[in-house]
């Protein structure tokens, strides 16, 4: 891990001292275990602030949206796919962007580690070490261990694009990629009856506090005014009414259709642990089945839902 940190710092130092970019966006060490804070540096001598480890799950593409400076950004596989999205959707200019791609081993699931620590040690996590495929967690008086593959975020366990799909600088050695996602989680919900699905989503959203952290952590959500924040006219109520809560979650997911890279930032950011990826993954699965489309893999192809061909095989659109 520390080799990656050193490489990121060297690249950042070089890009800034050579005047290639105005700022570098990366992570700095957090104040809590399993947390790093997105940050920027503007001077080469600040490069030593940058870190990299298994707790960089927030998607940094979210921090380059509409930036006017020349920006270098540290990007794991999913972040790089969102940068591709951003370029296609004109949220950043390719020539103003330097992608410091990091070959990613997957991010650790902080919620899972915290809850296992509670179960096994009845304590908060004090420290997490991740070396040689093994994670060692210190919680109170107890130390417990598990293979890192077990403790990865769900999206990282399923990820097929850990290596950056777009980069100008590469950190680390490319890792072997999975070739398939079985979408077993989505299929399980698809198999439910309508009533069971309704009950399932009702229960799932019952703890939502409408903070919109899922939306705000997502690089896809950059509307100048989100529909839930529109006040003239106001589309959605502001209370804890379950209808408004559902409306928000369903519409948010649909706005991400054909664009979502399953980076997991939304779930990671949710303060109450709602598995919101269940919505976006259903749409990812549909896009893949209907159009053979995965978002953010190429600068040369228009996204599934923003293209039209006279030869479209479907009747409804002709």
């Amino acid at each position, binding site marked *: 891990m520390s080799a990656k940190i050193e490489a990121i710092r060297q690249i950042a130092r070089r890009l800034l001292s050579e005047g290639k970019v105005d700022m570098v966006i990366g992570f700095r060490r957090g104040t*809590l275990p399993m947390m790093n*804070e997105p940050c*920027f540096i503007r001077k080469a001598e600040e490069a030593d602030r940058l870190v990299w480890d298994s707790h960089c799950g927030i998607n940094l593409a979210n921090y380059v949206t509409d930036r006017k400076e020349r920006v270098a950004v540290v990007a794991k596989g999913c972040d790089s796919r969102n940068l591709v999205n951003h370029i296609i959707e004109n949220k950043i200019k390719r020539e103003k962007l330097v992608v410091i791609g990091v070959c990613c081993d997957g991010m650790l699931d902080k919620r899972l580690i915290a809850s296992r620590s509670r179960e096994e040690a009845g304590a908060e996590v004090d420290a997490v070490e991740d070396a040689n495929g093994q994670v060692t967690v210190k919680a109170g008086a107890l130390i417990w261990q598990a293979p890192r593959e077990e403790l990865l975020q769900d999206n990282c366990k399923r990820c097929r694009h850990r290596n950056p799909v777009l980069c100008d600088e590469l950190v680390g050695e490319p890792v072997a990629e999975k070739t398939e996602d079985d979408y077993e989680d989505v299929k399980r919900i698809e198999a439910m009856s309508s009533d069971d699905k309704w009950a399932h989503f009702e229960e799932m959203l019952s703890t939502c506090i409408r903070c919109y*952290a899922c939306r705000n952590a997502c690089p896809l959500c950059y509307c100048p005014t989100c529909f839930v924040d529109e006040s003239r006219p106001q589309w959605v109520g502001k*209370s804890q009414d379950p209808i408004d809560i559902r409306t928000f979650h369903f519409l948010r997911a649909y706005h991400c259709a054909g664009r979502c890279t399953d980076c997991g930032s939304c779930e990671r950011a949710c303060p109450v642990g709602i598995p919101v990826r269940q919505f976006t993954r259903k749409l990812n699965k549909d896009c893949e089945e209907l159009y053979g489309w995965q978002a953010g893999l190429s600068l040369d192809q228009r996204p599934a839902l923003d293209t039209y061909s006279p030869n479209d095989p479907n009747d409804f659109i002709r």
Partner: protein
Amino acid sequence: MKVIHIHKTEWQGGLDKARSGYGLYGPVRQGQDDPVFRPLGPGEFPEMSFKNTKMSPKELVHPQSEPLFRYTLDPQAPDHDILKEVQKDASPKALLAVRPCDADAFLLVRRNFDTPVYKDPYWVTAYESFTKIGLACNQACSATAFCTSAGSGPFSDAGVDVLLVDTGDAYLAKVITEKGGQFLGACGFSAPAADGEARIASLREKAEATIASFVHTDKLREQATIELYDAPFWEDVSFACINCGTCTYSCPTCWCFDIQDETRGKQGVRMRNWDSCMYPLFTLHGSGHNPRGTKLHRVRQRFMHKLKYYVDKYQDGIQCVGCGRCIRLCPVNIDIRNVCNMMNGYTACACAAS
């Protein structure tokens, strides 16, 4: 001050006796997660062994969504187009096992809702209906708790009517107010504790020693407001923020709200909802202008309000009790301790120029 001895075997029986006179509210655990406050049904008892609740009990007094008036737009109805006040429940309630920081927070919030000039009837009615039974923390709830340097503490009895101290097989109940004494009376708890005050003092000292995290607040008042406002660190502080508002919703001392009318069919309700300085609609003017139009403005507002404007206005410390929830729940690890220390230690001069 009177200290009552309650053997733990008597605790639930006592609460059962109190049920006829009080609605009971307390922490309830759901799965592995931290407990949440809710009304206790018959046969339900408060969780007494927990660090702190996930969210603070502020929502019991200041609900996230609270109906104030109802109305009908049906022209056939005799009372159409008339706002009718929603009756508030003023019946006596007991808030059991509230942690000292969260009880203390009610006093901070009270400064906004219950002043000599303005009394918010909804907040005041709810607040006064509660008898608050505090539960002292024998040890720090988390490495992020900094209550002792935020004007509160693990044994603080500010804002509670009774403070319970867990001694293993019993609770020492320190009676702070008459209201608290009445609740203990309703429970039938009356055995005086031998050496109560001394034992509490010694446990308090041990508990305070476990608080490992601190903020510095001594220079906040003398800082010049404009210089802090213009300090160069806000871009750095706010950069990671996603403006989700989790910090403000989880904060026991954040009190901002917004009023909305919602109509469905011909029936409507005027309600007030929690607002958050993190949101783009917060302080949005009718003209479309928002003086806090960017993330930097919003983040700065949150910290300046808690750590400067409040400090200056009320001259009684910061608008924070050090519970640490905002630090633990922030998705991007923005840490109020760092920001507080930065504001406290700030010297305008070369830094501003660089």
